[in-house]
């Protein structure tokens, strides 16, 4: 683990001392014929490989959508699994073109890392997972508990703030990987496992007896998760940003993976603009006219991706909640394609 981050740091030092001109990410990706996408080391629902090495998840769908928009082929991707602490260095060094790895959008990350968040793929919050046998009903009863946490995350700081704010004592044990953290929790080294609520549901599935564990009702932080790109390449920033907006807008306009062929022949002006039968919005992004069609054909709209990976159609069974569209009670909102 230490070696990996050392490799990335050296790569960062090397790339920073070698490159001079602004890298044009779109051109680089096209020349390479492949999108390099940083994902997690395996988080069900967000990015996880199956036994054949096929990656799935809501974060993976963002990468597939970008690849589809550029190459019209959602499989032209190299997935780079990254630990929480290596992810930013990998992005800074140019090892990956886009970081789509359940990363919380914060001010300091948006400014000091030399990278930008492009949007919010999932509105999350931090929670606590405990054993049912402890008979704890609220996070406020966790005084003196031992807490397992994954290092290199906003979680560590939220945890410190929450326990300090409520005048409670605790012991923190921080691990590098999510798997080690969960293993320590399961072995009884800690009473509590804390992470983003979506991740708690996902990790609970990996436990030997998921029914023995319960997620406490308190959500102690705002964790808007989204993709990141490097500073200084506005075209690439726009592409990654609008691919996500396209998926959200598609859901709002009722375009799905199934009816996309039909809808692309529609006469409705907003659909004509999106599908490029009217105007050249895709070309303004540096893509092709049919970019919107390609994205939806490859991964479906936002709602479909959500259901398939984390929602009702998945094992995680997470409710849409905040991630519902703005006109259906949630806060997912995308600017119009026009």
């Amino acid at each position, binding site marked *: 683990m230490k070696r990996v981050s050392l490799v990335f740091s050296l790569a960062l030092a090397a790339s920073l001392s070698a490159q001079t001109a602004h890298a044009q990410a779109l051109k680089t990706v096209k020349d390479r014929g492949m999108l390099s996408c940083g994902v997690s080391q395996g988080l069900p629902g967000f990015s996880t490989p199956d036994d054949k090495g096929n990656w799935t998840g809501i974060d993976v769908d963002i990468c597939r959508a970008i690849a589809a928009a550029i190459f019209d082929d959602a499989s032209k991707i190299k997935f780079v699994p990254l630990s929480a602490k290596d992810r930013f260095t990998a992005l800074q060094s140019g090892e990956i073109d886009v970081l789509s790895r359940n990363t919380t959008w914060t001010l300091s990350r948006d400014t000091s890392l030399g990278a930008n968040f492009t949007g919010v793929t999932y509105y999350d919050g931090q929670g606590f997972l405990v054993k049912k046998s402890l008979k704890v009903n609220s996070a406020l009863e966790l005084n003196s508990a031992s807490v397992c946490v994954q290092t290199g995350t906003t979680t560590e700081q939220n945890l410190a703030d929450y326990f300090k704010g409520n005048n409670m004592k605790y012991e923190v044990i921080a*691990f590098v990987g999510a798997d080690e953290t969960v293993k320590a929790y399961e072995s009884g080294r800690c009473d509590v496992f804390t992470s983003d609520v979506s991740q708690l549901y996902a990790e609970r599935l990996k436990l030997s007896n998921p029914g023995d564990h319960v997620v406490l009702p308190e959500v102690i932080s705002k964790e808007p998760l989204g993709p990141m790109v490097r500073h200084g390449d506005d075209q690439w920033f726009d592409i990654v940003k609008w691919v996500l907006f396209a998926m959200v807008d598609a859901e709002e306009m009722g375009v799905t993976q199934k009816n996309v062929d039909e809808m692309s022949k529609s006469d409705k002006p907003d659909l004509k603009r999106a599908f490029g039968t009217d105007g050249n919005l895709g070309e303004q992004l540096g893509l092709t006219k049919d970019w919107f069609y390609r994205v939806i054909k490859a991964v479906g709209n936002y709602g479909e991706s959500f259901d398939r990976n984390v929602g009702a159609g998945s094992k995680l069974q997470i409710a849409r909640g905040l991630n519902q569209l703005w006109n259906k009670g949630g806060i997912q909102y995308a600017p119009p394609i026009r």
Partner: protein
Amino acid sequence: MSIESRSPPPQFAFRLKRALGGRAGWGGFALQVVFVVVLIWIGYEIVANARLNLETQHITSGFGFLKNTAGFDVSQNLIPYSGSDPYTQVFLVGLLNTLLVSVIGIFFATLIGFVVALCRLSPNWLLSRIGGAYVEAVRNIPVLFQILFWYLAVLAALPGPRQSISLFGSFFLSNRGLIIPKPVGEPGLPPFALALLIAIVAWLILHRYARRQLFEKGRSITIWPYALGMLIGLPLVASLVFGAPVIFEIPALKGFNFAGGSRVIPEFVALTVALSTYTAAFIAEIVRAGIMSVHRGQMEAGLSLGLSRGSVLRLIVVPQAMRVILPPLTNQYLNLTKNSSLAVAIGYPDLVSVFAGTTLSQTGQAIEIIAITMGVYLAISLITSAVMSFYGWRISRSLGA
């Protein structure tokens, strides 16, 4: 070229030429200058380019982040630390945790290593086979697996805090670590410490006196009963007069964990045990090689003088063996220190975990943090080497005398 005997060659210029250019003369010197200039230029280009690119990409650089508040907690801190302290304090906490594991690991590795080596060299068949089996088993398994084994297989199998194994109702062993009574200083502590100090100084003086008597007059004086009496008696008298030096805070189960008392966390135990047993296997072989390098005749000569086997080992064989042992032993000490960075695998908060891990990902300043961390390991290693070299110099001096 012939040298005229009357006018000696320009000695100074000649020496300078040899020193700077070697056999190649001034041409070689010029080549060296060019080489150094090119090296400096490459280094400058790397640094300047990195700076420029960091600026153009708006990545924060510099060491200003060290003053910012860390905002996260650490499970083991030897100095007072809370989340509202700056990153410099996190750095110190991590550094001390690394040093703690290294120092204690080196102590036990040396101890176990010497014992195993003596076992292997012992004429006793069973002891030598046990020593051999230990070395072969331990040194051939990767150290990371050994750390994980101790952490996940041995220590994680301990019961939870509510079912912890209790000793005298004041020591508790559970999967949260070993909780022991914590000594709290009382008014009687300063006189107690003073009495102990006086006893130790007196013991050292007595020891010197006995040695001098032995070397100069050949008289052997038994001092240990007096020394022991003073070491126990003086502090005892002090505490009888001034009251107990410390009282012990007994840990008690409260909520999820024990409150009060001191705690040794299982991550520390797993790491220290794994590193010291692993390194001990290598040290055992080094010590064995060192002892075997001393000629048989030394041992036989010592025995024929009527010294016991232990005395011969301690006074004659080991001091000579140390000359061979020290350089590779230093290597093992350095290896142990560097291997302590494997702590990240089990969540022990060492320097790599809290500083090159959490701090790095919170600030994103990879170049600065990795540079500091590498510098610290380099400094620790150089200091260790220097201490060992000094020790080696003293040994060879005393052997030469």
